[in-house]
């Protein structure tokens, strides 16, 4: 087994509200190894995004400890890149400039401009966006924006890549092609990834392990499913794969039997 990249130890998270403290997460223990792809799945409101934000350092835990590469996570930083759900590209910068901003921050101290530009172009080529790199975000489609968001994150060569429902806002076909592309990129780079999703197929297709969260408030890890499918994976081959179908069934069972949300 590879080295642990992220360790979450006995983490709890509560927010202060007018009605008193709201406990979002409790007793979270999770270790993510280097090169591993872990997805967090659960019904909405189960705190999966909160857990991701804790790893990102965008929020700090009320109790417990988070470590990244042996060091305590005390705030956000470029070694933990985040792909946001709504892409969060800066609208006044072109795709190239958006990625360059990240590249410059991470490598600007050591490398000259030409090298930084090469890095930016490579990152955009990785997600097949090099043809539109001088366009502004409002000139490209939602799927293309999300690709640029992914390119920005990969260009930083982070220790771990955090993705918050990265394909949630996309239509099914675009989502599938981006998932395939993400799989390719993950294989090429051997990235460690934590991804939040509510899509069962996406979880099984992309993960080494699936962390299933119980319903909130005071959500915690319900079950962890190890996805026993060899890489590289291909969507079409897996559709009839017995293991894939089993994993999928296990997830559905968890989500719709054990953690069925009371009708809202």
């Amino acid at each position: 087994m590879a080295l642990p990249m992220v360790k979450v130890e006995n983490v709890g998270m509560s927010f202060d509200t007018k009605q008193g403290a709201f406990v979002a997460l409790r007793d979270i223990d999770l270790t993510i190894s280097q090169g591993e792809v872990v997805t967090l799945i659960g019904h909405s409101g189960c705190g999966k995004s909160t857990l991701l934000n804790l790893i990102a350092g965008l929020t700090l835990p009320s109790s417990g400890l988070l470590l990244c590469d042996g060091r305590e996570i005390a705030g956000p930083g470029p070694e933990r890149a985040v792909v946001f759900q709504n892409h969060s590209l800066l609208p006044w910068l072109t795709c190239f400039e958006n990625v360059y901003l990240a590249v410059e921050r991470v490598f600007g101290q050591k490398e000259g401009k030409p090298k930084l530009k090469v890095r930016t172009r490579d990152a955009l080529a990785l997600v097949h966006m090099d043809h539109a790199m001088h366009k502004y975000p409002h000139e490209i489609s939602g799927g293309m924006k999300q690709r640029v968001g992914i390119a920005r994150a990969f260009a930083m060569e982070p220790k771990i890549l955090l993705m918050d429902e990265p394909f949630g806002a996309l239509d099914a076909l675009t989502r599938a092609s981006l998932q395939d592309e993400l799989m390719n990129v993950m294989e090429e780079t051997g990235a460690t990834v934590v991804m939040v999703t509510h899509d069962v197929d996406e979880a099984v297709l992309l993960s080494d392990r699936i962390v299933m969260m119980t319903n909130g408030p005071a959500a915690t890890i319900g079950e962890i499913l190890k996805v026993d499918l060899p890489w590289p994976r291909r969507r079409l081959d897996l559709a009839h794969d017995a293991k894939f179908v089993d994993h999928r069934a296990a997830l559905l069972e968890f989500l719709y039997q054990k953690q069925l949300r009371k009708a809202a």
Partner: protein
Amino acid sequence: MNAATLAAKPLGTPSLVRMVSTVSADPQPQAVAATIEEVPPKPVRAPGVALGKRLLPLTKAIVPPIFGFALLIGVWAMVAMKGSIPGPLQTWDAAVVLFSDPFYSNGPNDQGIGWNVLSSLKRVAVGFGFAALVGIPAGFIIGRFAFMNSMVSPIISLLRPVSPLAWLPIGLMVFKQADPAATWTIFICSIWPMIINTAVGVQRVPRDYMNVARVLDLSEWKIVTRILFPSVLPYMLTGIRLSIGTAWLVIVAAEMLTGGVGIGFWVWDEWNNLKVEHIIIAIFVIGIVGLALEQMLILIARRFSYGNA
């Protein structure tokens, strides 16, 4: 807003023209058309209809304002017949004389209307420039730090409703001269919208962009230049547009009080000379200059509004 609809409407119609022509250029109907002689008139008629439709929005845009101005001039002429106010024709004749030599200069109290407008604009520019220099950075600081916001906002709330002319005596006392005192009132009236809009803009920077900045761990300088400034710019330009509007309102009143050369002083001077037609001309000139300033800033603002990303 009016300019936007004006520009948008004529754009809509050419597509209609194109639709008509593509229908007639479709290969299949053409093959049939070759055998039937009566078809050709159709494409000839189609552009005619399209031309009419294209002119319609234009007439819609132009005719009502013409009626409006005609009404204004009509009412003006009627009022002028009954009272002592010069009528449109009389004013027009005076305007022709006035604008035939706008840049004469017979000493400080008798200069052409061009000089008067320019010196008013200069005062506005200087006062407004200082206000931008102080107000925009102040707005950034107030928007960025909650403590500063709570500290300064009661003061702003107290001072903002005060007429800038109330500050004129203070200006006269401090600067001991009329000209910088007038500029000072412009400074005072321009600074509030600039501070408030910049601060609001800073506070409304989308959280997502700030999260990007946090994840990238950008330096404060990069945050300001790459995220805050571009994101706040549209708000800032709104502040600038509002302040230049008020500045142009205030300068006329301020110059009436301080004297010297300027459009406001000129209005007062012509009142003392009982040249009422010149006062009416001045009203039009002030209106046109104000409109031009506003439109200029709307154009600049449009340049810096980013599409919905």
